[in-house]
């Protein structure tokens, strides 16, 4: 297997995902197959080729630093699963 169960679990942790035990093997198998397929990129000689991160090259898009209207606090909070006193409520952060 190209990617081990432990690696899948480690990457899942980095991505803040909990993969169920029953699903880890299937994921490792599928992802290994995909990574093997991706390996064919190594057949391409890319020496000295500049990487493209953006298909259309634009230079920096600047705008004037002016005040503009923005969402009001109620609207910004309206979709929060838990909110109180104009804040987002989350479980304990520091143990």
């Amino acid at each position, binding site marked *: 297997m190209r990617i081990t169960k432990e690696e899948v679990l480690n990457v899942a942790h*980095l991505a803040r995902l909990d993969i169920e035990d029953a699903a880890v093997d299937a994921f490792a198998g599928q992802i290994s197959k995909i990574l093997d397929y991706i390996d064919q990129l190594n057949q391409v000689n890319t020496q000295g080729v500049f990487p493209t991160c*953006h298909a259309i090259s634009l230079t920096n898009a600047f705008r004037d630093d002016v005040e503009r209207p923005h969402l009001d606090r109620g609207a910004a909070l309206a979709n929060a699963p838990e909110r109180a006193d104009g804040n987002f409520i989350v479980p304990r952060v520091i143990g």
Partner: protein
Amino acid sequence: MKLHELTIVEAGKLLTEKQISSRELVTAVFDRIAQVEDRVGAFITLCREGALSQAAAADARIAAGDATPLTGIPLSIKDLICTEGVRTTCGSKILTDFIPPYDATVMQKLKQAGAVMVGKVNMDEFAMGSSTENSAFKLTRNPWDLARIPGGSSGGSAASVAADMCLGSLGSDTGGSIRQPASHCGVVGLKPTYGRVSRYGLVAYASSLDQIGPLGKTVMDCALLLNAIAGYDPSDSTSVPQAVPDYTAVCESGLSGITIGLPEEYYRVAGLDAAVAEAVQAAVQKIEQLGAKTISVSLPHTAYAVAAYYVVASAEASSNLARYDGVKYGFRDSGHSELLEMYKSTRSKGFGPEVQRRIIIGTYALSAGYYDAYYGKASQVRTLIQQDFKKAFEHCDVIVSPVAPSPAFKIGEKSHDPLAMYLSDILTLSANLAGIPGMSVPCGFSSEGLPIGLQLLGNHFNEESLFKVGFNFEQSADVRFKKPTL
């Protein structure tokens, strides 16, 4: 006259001549939805009340002589375009109850034009998929054969247009998600040049590849839709400040002087169906008869497009989807006393398997020690793919090929083999890597009666050539007169 079967051009004429009202048109569309939607399953959310009030406003506007070509026209919208006050799920459990507090720029533009929103349509979760089977909500079926997929990820858009449940739709295309479902459902679909249409308010999947575009019954209808949504937007720093031509104006000019490039690699892909090859070949001959010249071109890095795409798209997705953490909006798995537990549980329960798979591949590809080997390498191959197109467009105006190697496959046929599903996108995703525009135009049917699409690719900001070739071909072929029987 069946009002729901009208094109946007036809309906617009009847509306401005006051032979029909938008209210009648919208009512006819909802009657049609009542008849066929339980079999097709294109919609996640229907907006009957909102649509009727938009229709009334449109009728008032038409009476006042203030109509645009889209005033009073009922459209469906892919459920990843933010609509103020109307839930926008992105096909995901994690956004089941998300009600955007603002409109995407394209929605602001459609509202200003007086268009009517019928509802929000189904899609693969976060636009990740080629069959709409990855939706957390429902299956959408192909109106031409209910046992088959409509394509994806804009499957609801394509199916709703093909089944006459709207007159046009907006979808999004990250690797073929407008063109492939358009091809499978026998409608026209256009992915504009990257930066042609604002992405502000489009839920992000892979930001350097995503682009919103129209699906319609005809090429001219898509031109009208693109006219309305294209243009620079200060809210999207990747939109390009370039004038928007009238895309309808170029349609009717002929094809003499146009050179069509036929990429040999696209006609040699594994699994290219004989019926697809035949229909595309016949279409190319037709385009030659209309006055265009054809030449052979080469896109030598085609074989690497799928691999490069899945690295780039997954990497960007893993970063974009980090925002779904159960805090600001969307689903939260409650009952956890620790923040980290809450994040993990929320994301694992909120995202479906394909989304989780791509987040893991993307996170892996971006992680320490692997970045150069995967993301760096894929970004370099992306440059080579872009250069292939650049060279090809030195010799031709439009590249013509199939959209997908085969017609629509059966529901469930590929859902257990992610790689097989990825490989079916080989002919469309290079355009996203290169940022060029692409159109799918219906060009024939398989022996089973399944639609086949013709792909037209153009150079950056050369949508006009696609409209010109697409329109002339469409008018010369009789494919457009055929409708699915539902």
